[in-house]
């Protein structure tokens, strides 16, 4: 396997503030790699180093085996990038925005670019300043995909996309993977990363927490569930169910946390009259809890 992105002890400080510290990553060719962490964890800092927008305080980063600083132009030729905070030229139309980037890239397959634009229902004829946030985001995605880059780096890509377009976006990511190309996605939303990534690095407060296969992560993910019962249920009915924690019964409602698969709990609950089920999207902080027990004190 070929390593596409590799960092060693990558650190970046602003004065005494450490944005990232000792980050070591290896992203393999053909995988969709998630870079998961809360806002301010250092995801954007890492990405901006890969693109040579900023320079590391110490450590190294390489993309396609090329040094991120020395060979930046060669790297960027093969990279598509979607920034987290994207600003496009206000007075250009969408089509002009694409055309400008295409020129600076020495030309792209225009019919492919238009096909991508069409799939995302991108508005091309209006000036960027008249576009909604979601429509700008779509233009940004077209910019990131249109030159068929070997590596696509996206910083919080699905923010602002409506659910239907998110599905289309996920299909596009799957296609890139199927072609053996590589995707690097940063996100603070666990379910999104679960849906499209093969492996996930978790970063918190500038430090790498873990790198896991998505399956392993899923097993460690805590889901908060609520079951509302239509009958009296004994308070200790679910005490011994495997994977179930923090069980409380209150007014006929069971609150609990499930680690990994909810299968055993579902079987146990099935014997009772359930009137309502509430499942919260797993929170990132819950993942940290599962790694640390106490996420606050053991971060360093």
């Amino acid at each position, binding site marked *: 396997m070929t390593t596409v992105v590799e960092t060693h002890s990558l650190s970046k400080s602003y004065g005494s503030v450490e944005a990232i510290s000792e980050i070591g990553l290896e992203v393999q060719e053909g995988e969709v790699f998630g870079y998961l962490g809360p806002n301010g964890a250092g995801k*954007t800092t890492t990405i*901006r180093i890969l*693109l040579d*927008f*900023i*320079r590391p305080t110490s450590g190294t980063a390489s993309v396609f085996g090329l040094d991120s600083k020395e060979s*930046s*132009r*060669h790297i*960027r*030729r093969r*990279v598509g*990038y979607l*920034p987290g*905070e*994207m*600003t*496009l*030229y*206000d*007075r*250009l139309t969408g089509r*002009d925005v694409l*055309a*400008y*980037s295409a*020129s*600076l*890239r*020495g030309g792209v397959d225009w019919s492919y670019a238009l096909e991508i634009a069409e799939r995302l229902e991108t508005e091309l004829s209006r000036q960027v300043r008249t576009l909604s946030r979601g429509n700008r985001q779509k233009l*940004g995605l077209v*910019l990131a995909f249109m030159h068929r880059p070997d590596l696509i780096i996206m910083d919080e890509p699905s923010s602002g996309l409506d659910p239907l377009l998110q599905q289309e976006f996920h299909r596009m990511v799957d296609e890139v993977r199927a072609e053996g190309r590589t995707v690097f996605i940063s996100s603070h939303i666990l379910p999104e990363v679960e849906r499209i990534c093969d492996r996930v690095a978790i970063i918190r407060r500038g430090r790498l927490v873990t790198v896991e296969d998505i399956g392993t992560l899923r097993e460690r993910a805590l889901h908060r569930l609520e079951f509302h019962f239509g009958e009296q249920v004994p308070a200790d009915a679910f005490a011994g169910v495997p994977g179930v924690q923090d069980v409380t019964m209150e007014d006929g409602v069971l609150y609990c946390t499930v680690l990994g698969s909810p299968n055993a709990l579902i079987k146990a609950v099935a014997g009772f009259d359930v009137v309502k089920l509430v499942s919260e999207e797993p929170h990132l902080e819950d993942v940290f809890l599962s790694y640390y027990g106490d996420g606050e004190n053991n971060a360093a």
Partner: protein
Amino acid sequence: MLRSVLSKTVRDQNRSLLWWGLGLIILTVVTMLFYPSLSEATELNDLLVDDNPLIKAFIGDVPDLTSPEGFLNSQIFFLMLPLMFLAFAVAQGSGAIAGEEEKGTLDMLMSNPIDRWRVVIEKFGAMIVTVLALAVVTWLGLAVGAVAVSMEISYVKMAEATLAAALLGIAFGGFALALGSATGRRAMSIGVAGGVGAASYFLNALAPAVDGLELLRWLSPFYYYSSADPITNGLHLGHAGVLVALTAVLLAIAVVTFNRRDLGV
């Protein structure tokens, strides 16, 4: 127009160029139309008799206000035109890198496979193109005005004097570009470049009348623009060379500093 950073940057200025060009045409033509009435008012030269340094500070050291050269120097070339070119070029230079950075478009631009030095050079090239375009428009305005009032003046020397003013403007634009490239701060770059521009104007203009300043006059870029009187003597190659060299140094500083630093978000 979207083929390169240079042409895109020029394209971004099309509206601004239109207004500046229009303003310069009006300024030059209308000023020229006053020439016939002024050229007969020889008593105006009495203003010069006292050797008043305050007047000279704004119209230059003109021997005869009613001659074509004296008229053009005092009304257009000594203050107005260099000021206009300076203001336009400083706006361009400060916006080149720092403007894109503050708006947030620099990230998207730099995600393309283009070296940082090349972005600076192309932005600088766009500034040259636009300032020279305004210089051509200015010269046309002067020429049309000169024809209209039958002024006896060399069109070549008018072109040379206009070019000298453009070179001065470009030097200050280069200063603003360097400041913006090094810091990413547009307003600071405009303020400092504009302030230094104003200070160096007065240094050059007041130097002949103020004792200690005379020795420092050579520090002012304006000295290399106006002291050789280009409208009378044509472009002074040595002085033009100083402005070009200064610009080259500032451009090099812009490239090096931009290449070294982190880009702002």
